[in-house]
């Protein structure tokens, strides 16, 4: 046990001597959470639009006002002919053009029919789709406004309540995602590198030649990173809570325990990576190239998993971060207890055992 | 012997509060085998790095091959070879690829590179392993190859930093044969070592203790001066003057 402690202490020395890495380890997640908490959002806000108003009557002016004051849109410019549309799109700034028919008000009042055309730059189809939906819904409610004063019969009015995140803050969605991505990469990357490094320098052989069990050697290498990653998680949670008001509605203890589980899982993955590689370079590339984009894209961090095609949804089951994000959302935002996510928890435990088992197997083959 | 090719005058290197090299003064003549001796940490590597232009001195003066170590380092580099303490060959390249690479970055012509490669392979008897990766070769072979690569561009001086550490005695002998050969061809050899028996092979040696040169002479004169029968004795007497052997 004393020997074990000495090993852990040695690992800590390694980490704390290397101030550059330490700064990165702590500073960067903080910078990231601040940056992303404020900057990344998939809410539409102030999207630049252009208006081609061929009518310029009291109704089109009112409707334009309504569209522009919704907060979703910002006027980039008025166009005067259809020929300008192509040009304005190609310049790239304007995302949508709204076109009113000639004699809009007149037609609406006389023929009960008038046309609005919406053109969206669909090189970004997600944004285009959302913009069109927002615009149509504004126009629809404008229509209802016009009819006001004459209460229409047989009307159901939906009363909408937004649960868990009434102000629709996208940071609520991103904080759990960021925690997972950062913990995943830091834990898996740090361990795989530090073990690969000892192999590369040759000190691993010295350690293994010591009277310690190989498992002890590995565990002692991993413990400091567990502590580091855990303190990182706490810092991010605190920032999320203090700066962005992301609540923790469920049990804090449970949240911390689940975080430790996830970190251990990521560490065991790092160990597995290091057992199959010989150089830091390969270890790094596997953990970065192999983990970075899949963790960002398939975990539900940014893109909802249920929108993905079936094969991809199946693949996403293999992304541990996906399960952790579900757990985080449940505890932090819904305030539910373990009953609601015992399955996800078990899956993470399963991953941990699988990675550990595989590394032990790999390791034995190597030693034998 | 010929003219002076390395000249150092009160050359010092200070790292923070630690004086690694303390006002060393010496000169080395052309085609000489100059031994730079001292215990680990005596400042040998620091001194060699200043002379090869890898490290800027803190104070003092030095000229290598007629060029100043402060502002003519690139000219120095054109005229020297260097074999560092750590592996200077790429382990993931083969013998011939290493030779070709170093010859290439020294600017040797294509035909000259070919010539040199076959010459080296023959001389070092590496024919069978010329396409093997360096990491598969025993340490002694690698060191011999590293030395040959360090003088592939026929420099005026070659600096060797602990070239034989960790190598078995037989290979060490072979290594020194290579050094003699180089010196015979007119290359000045500046070699650091902490093996005192190797010191006997040098024309002149300097003894470095704690960043200072304590003695500098031929091995015979040093032994006489310290009343010792081997260089090892000389060294112990000098490093720990109050101890009895």
């Amino acid at each position: 046990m004393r020997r074990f402690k000495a090993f852990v202490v040695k690992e800590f020395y390694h980490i704390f001597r290397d101030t550059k890495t330490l700064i990165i380890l702590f500073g960067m997640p903080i910078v990231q959470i601040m940056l992303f908490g404020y900057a990344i959002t998939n809410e539409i806000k102030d999207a630049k639009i252009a208006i081609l108003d061929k009518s310029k009557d009291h109704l089109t002016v009112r409707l334009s006002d309504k569209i522009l004051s919704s907060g979703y849109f910002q006027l980039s410019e008025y166009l005067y002919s259809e020929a300008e549309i192509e040009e304005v799109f190609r310049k790239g700034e304007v995302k949508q053009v709204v076109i009113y028919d000639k004699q809009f008000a007149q037609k609406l009042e006389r023929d009960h029919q008038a046309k609005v055309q919406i053109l969206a730059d669909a090189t970004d189809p997600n944004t285009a789709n959302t913009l069109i939906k927002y615009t149509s819904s504004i126009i629809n409610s404008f229509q209802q406004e016009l009819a006001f004063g004459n209460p229409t019969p047989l009307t159901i009015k939906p009363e909408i309540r937004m649960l868990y995140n009434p102000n629709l803050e996208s940071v609520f969605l991103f904080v759990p995602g960021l925690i997972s991505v950062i913990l995943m990469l830091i834990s898996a990357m740090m361990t795989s590198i530090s073990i690969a490094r000892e192999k590369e320098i040759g000190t691993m052989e010295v350690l293994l030649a010591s009277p310690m069990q190989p498992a002890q050697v590995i565990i002692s290498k991993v413990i400091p990173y567990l502590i580091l990653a855990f303190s990182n998680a706490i810092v991010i949670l605190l920032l999320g809570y203090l700066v962005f008001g992301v609540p923790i509605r469920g049990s804090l203890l449970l949240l911390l325990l689940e975080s430790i589980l996830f970190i251990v899982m990521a560490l065991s993955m790092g160990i597995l990576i290091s057992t199959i590689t010989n150089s830091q370079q390969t270890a790094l590339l596997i953990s970065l190239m192999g983990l970075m984009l899949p963790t960002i894209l398939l975990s539900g961090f940014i893109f909802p998993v249920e929108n993905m095609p079936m094969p991809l949804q199946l693949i996403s089951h293999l992304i541990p971060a996906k399960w952790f994000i579900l757990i985080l959302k449940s505890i932090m935002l819904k305030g539910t207890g373990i009953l609601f996510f015992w399955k996800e928890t078990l899956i993470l435990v399963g991953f941990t055992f699988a990675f550990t088992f595989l590394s032990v197997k790999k390791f034995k083959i190597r030693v034998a | 012997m010929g003219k002076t090719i390395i000249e150092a005058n009160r050359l010092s290197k200070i790292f923070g509060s630690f004086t690694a090299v303390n006002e060393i003064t010496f000169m080395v003549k052309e085609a000489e085998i100059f031994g730079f001796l001292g215990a680990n940490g005596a400042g040998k590597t620091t001194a060699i790095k200043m002379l090869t232009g890898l490290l800027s001195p803190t104070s003092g003066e030095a000229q290598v091959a007629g060029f100043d170590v402060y502002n003519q380092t690139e000219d120095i580099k054109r005229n020297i070879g260097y074999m560092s303490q750590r592996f200077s060959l790429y382990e993931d390249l083969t013998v011939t690829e290493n030779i070709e690479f170093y010859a290439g970055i020294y600017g040797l012509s294509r035909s000259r590179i070919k010539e040199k490669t076959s010459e080296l392979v023959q001389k070092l008897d590496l024919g069978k392993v010329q396409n093997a990766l360096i990491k598969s070769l025993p340490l002694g072979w690698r060191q011999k190859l590293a030395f040959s690569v360090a003088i592939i561009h026929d420099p005026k001086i070659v600096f060797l930093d602990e070239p034989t550490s960790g190598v078995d005695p037989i290979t060490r002998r072979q290594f020194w044969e290579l050094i003699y050969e180089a010196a015979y061809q007119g290359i000045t050899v500046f070699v650091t070592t902490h093996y005192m028996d190797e010191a006997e092979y040098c024309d002149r040696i300097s003894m470095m203790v704690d960043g200072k040169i304590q003695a500098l002479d031929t091995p015979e004169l040093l032994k006489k001066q310290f009343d010792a029968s081997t260089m090892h004795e000389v060294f112990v007497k000098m490093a720990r003057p109050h101890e009895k052997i």
Partner: protein
Amino acid sequence: MRIIYYLVKKELLQIFRNKGMLPIIFVIPIIQLVILSNAADFEIKNLKLYFIDNDHSAFSRLLQSKLEGSQYFMITGSGLGSQNGDAAMQNDLADLVIELPRGFEKKLMREGFDKIQLRINAIDGTKAGLASIYASEVISDYNREIRDRYGASRSLILDHTEGNKIEITYSNWYNPDLNYKTFMVPGILVLLVTMIGAFLSSMNIVREKEIGTIEQINVTPIKKHQFIIGKLFPFWLLGLVELSIGFLIAWLVFEVPFIGNIFLLYGFAALYLLLILGMGLFISTLTQTQQQAMFISWFFLVVFILMSGLFTAIENMPVWAQKVTLFNPIRYFIEVVRMVMLKGSGLFEVRWHILIVLLYAIALNGLAVFRYRKTV
């Protein structure tokens, strides 16, 4: 020039010799391109709807079938009582819950008006916003239908304004089917090439420092710029090859249209790669261990990737964050790829992008040459 040739040759030999690295450099990115390009679908469909019908009337059943019939919703449960709906939402079995009160039909017939409650899981704000728009759309459709069916029998006179209709037509330019792969494939390709380039180059010099071979190179008369160019070129080639494979996949597998001039795009990509590699080499000269180099490039890449405008639009960001993205090289490449590939923009329209990336590349490579010290 010859010196650079030998450096480049040595780098290429090392890259291709490392059997563990090659699959990472070529296979992983390609698999990821094929798989991940399918992931980035924001389009919301099949929202999970929990329908609580406390009324069980003709009216309520009509609403249910209307909701079921729309492409947006998928009824995953129905039952009585709000608590079931809440539980479904907590278990992630429902994205929204619609509850019809008891006596819904009666009240509607008597008073011509009723409210129904819609509860939406708003953790993902955008999704929630769209869900509410979709639901309102279906409900106003439903309103129209019951008016047509029952309105006349109740002899209500329709106000003439009721007949007024603003007809909305829309079209999606450059990508009429809203195929998000058209948008994602080139973007993800850019990310992958960037990551490979940045990681390989940032580990490269520092690796030689760790192994010790850098000293041997530093005592040669090699010039600083020769050294950096010798390091830059192999990875530049690698990146261009990788990019070409990626474009081929985009074209053959995903049938991404290619409207603009391919040479313009290649030219820009070549320039962009110089920038990324310069950044990597600069990081490499700054650090002592591969671990440090990796962490620094990892940090910048995560920031650059998430703020590139690929996953979340830059226009949605606050103004200061939009300014920050001006320093994000990935942003420029993604913009240019989209402009040239999908919109057919020409040299003139991307001139600023070219200029900025050029200056950026010169600056970073200059810094790398400057920071690379042959003497300690």
